[in-house]
């Protein structure tokens, strides 16, 4: 805790004399309750506590973050970003995440901070480790540089501001902390799946190894605890699960989409060539191979397919539907209903209106190229390029550059061919 705040609090409680004083409860991480009470991985309360314990051991808490050496996370940066916001005597800032991010993205990085409900789009939930605006193949993680770029540029068209005024070291600390929250969230999911798939109930046996039966003759069962500290096999599994997550992030740098130089067709300053490329892009935009028009609409206004969802909203929608259909029984029903009520209204994924010239992931040609090549992870937008290094894509790189050029020219294209006004009014006046 910040010492300054603590002394003010102490003074305050003296003044009030015996009143409750300041109740500074250190913030805690919460479990992803949608996952815990879902149909897919219903997780008994005992396991929820055990999962929280394991996560606490692996990642610490919001005031005291911790990272195992295997994660490769820089603990110094994490400490700069975590905890309450304060500045030391030399002016070095700490608690950056809580100062700049948590009000939208939440203490847990669940995208459900206090202001989140009022924003459209909702802030990103980091816990799945899925990010939209990046330079890598669709299923790959973003690079540090990708996250850095989003922090510095902000996301135009959303509530995400630019943090370009922060010193680079602070941005790096925040990038590290965002990754930390993703690692933690992905680990929680991995543990929940592990507990559901491989642990669970086992039959209780007596000293002879025979099953113990209850009054009705059914075998008595107990939960196999998630207790890696005392179970070397579980410890091994958890190490593997963590390694899988960390590997995914470490591989991002090998998954960057680097356009072939000979396929970059146009010198944009050459108007004629640019127009030729954009014309080819237009054909593709409305054709069925690229099929852009199906979602972005017949005039590029984003008014095509509008009833789909991104993965974050879809997960909530499916949970809400399952609770509406069958809440469950007793306490489970109560928990499920409470979780359902805590969620924000589900929103559709609305395709971008391409006539505004606002591109959330950046407006450089390479940004648009990456979007078309890899699609947008987590959103319905599919990729048209190869899905991984060496794979075959639907469109050639040149064709994708053509679409880039058309998309860049779309805000300046007439939406229709309006008729010239008839000279009725002018005639009357004359």
């Amino acid at each position, binding site marked *: 805790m910040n010492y300054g705040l603590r002394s003010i609090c102490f003074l305050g409680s003296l003044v009030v004399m015996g009143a409750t004083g300041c109740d500074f409860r250190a913030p805690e991480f919460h479990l992803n309750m949608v996952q815990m009470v879902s*149909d*897919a991985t219903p997780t008994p309360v005992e396991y929820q506590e055990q999962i929280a314990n394991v996560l606490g051991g692996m990642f610490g808490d919001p005031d005291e973050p911790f990272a195992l050496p295997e994660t490769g996370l820089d603990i110094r940066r994490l400490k700069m970003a975590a905890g309450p916001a304060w500045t030391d005597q030399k002016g070095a800032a700490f608690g950056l995440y809580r100062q700049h991010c948590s009000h939208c993205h939440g203490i847990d990085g669940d995208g459900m901070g206090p202001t989140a409900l009022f924003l459209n789009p909702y802030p990103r939930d980091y816990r799945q480790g899925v990010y939209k605006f990046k330079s890598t193949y*669709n*299923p*790959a993680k973003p690079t540090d540089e990708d996250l850095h770029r989003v922090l510095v540029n902000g996301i135009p068209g959303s509530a995400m501001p630019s943090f370009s005024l922060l010193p680079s070291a602070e941005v790096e600390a925040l990038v590290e902390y965002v990754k930390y929250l993703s690692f933690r969230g992905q680990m929680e999911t991995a543990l929940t*799946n*592990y507990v*559901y*798939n*491989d642990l*669970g*109930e086992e039959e209780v046996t007596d000293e002879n190894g025979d099953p113990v039966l209850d009054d009705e003759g059914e075998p008595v069962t107990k939960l196999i605890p998630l207790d890696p500290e005392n179970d070397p096999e579980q410890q091994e*599994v958890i190490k*593997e699960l963590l390694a899988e997550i960390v590997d995914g992030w470490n591989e991002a740098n090998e998954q960057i989409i680097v356009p072939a130089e000979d396929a970059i067709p146009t010198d944009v300053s050459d108007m004629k060539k640019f127009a030729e490329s954009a014309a080819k892009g237009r054909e593709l935009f409305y*054709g*069925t*191979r*690229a*099929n852009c028009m*199906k*979602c972005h609409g017949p005039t590029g206004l984003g008014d095509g*397919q509008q*009833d*789909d969802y991104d*993965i974050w909203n879809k997960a909530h929608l499916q949970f809400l539907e399952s609770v509406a*259909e069958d809440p469950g029984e007793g306490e489970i029903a109560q928990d499920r209903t409470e979780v359902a009520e805590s969620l924000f209204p589900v929103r559709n994924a609305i395709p971008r209106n391409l006539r505004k010239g606002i591109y959330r992931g950046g407006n450089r040609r390479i940004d648009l190229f990456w979007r078309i090549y890899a*699609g947008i*992870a987590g959103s*319905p*937008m*599919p*990729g*048209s390029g190869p*899905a*991984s290094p060496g*794979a*075959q*894509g*639907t*469109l050639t790189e040149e064709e994708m550059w053509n679409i880039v050029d058309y998309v860049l020219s779309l805000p300046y294209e007439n939406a229709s061919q309006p008729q010239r006004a008839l000279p009725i009014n002018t005639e009357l006046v004359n």
Partner: protein
Amino acid sequence: MRKLFTIYSTTMLLLMLTSQLNAADWGSIKGKFVVDGSVGDPAAINVNKDTEYCGKHDLVDETVVVGDDGGLANVVVYIYTKRGQSLDVHPDFEASASEPVVLDNKGCRFEPHVIAVRTGQPLEVRNDDPGIGHNTNASFVANPGFNEMVTNGAPITKTLQKAEPVPAPVACNVHPWMKAYAVVREDPYMAVSDENGEFEILNVPAGQHEFIFWHEAKGNMKDLKMTGGKTDRKGRAKLKIASGETLDLGEIKIPAKALGK
């Protein structure tokens, strides 16, 4: 402690030996899923995209597909394997391990509705709807997902490296009614019930296995009663496969209510 360890390792050795000795013993399992009660006619799809082409296919909701005699199609049966555990594979499966499994975008639906594919086995995603653009969006748990455009005459081939704990949803975002599921396992011991509700898995290693029963309407199918056992809360049933024999689970009744009907 040391003594305990010796006992443990001897048991392990014995276990390993027996499993090797039994490696040549195989049995089969079969059964038929039947809906108990009425599920009504499947709802017609509101075709609001590519209406001219997709509209002529009389598309219906394929969540619950029931045959004339009440057989329930698309029930998935596979064997639970603990993390890191693999099953012996009968040599007969060697040939099929490299045969591509085809998932076709055809008639504005996925054909088949549920695919079963082994890790390392090619999965070929096709688009046989002339002049219609589809994308195929697969959400996996263990494998990296994919979301790609698929065009006529240019199938996309995927190989998945890891087994999926549950069947993974596959969608087409252009035509939101299009849904499929992919069962991805390391071993070939998986089946999808056919239009009569019947399934059979051949050449399963003899011994006791935990079979998982899954259907897209309700996920893991709990409390199913069958000859020789019943499923628990996770939709798993411990069943014994005898060498050289076929374990017939008989008619497995599924209440229409359990399918959300």
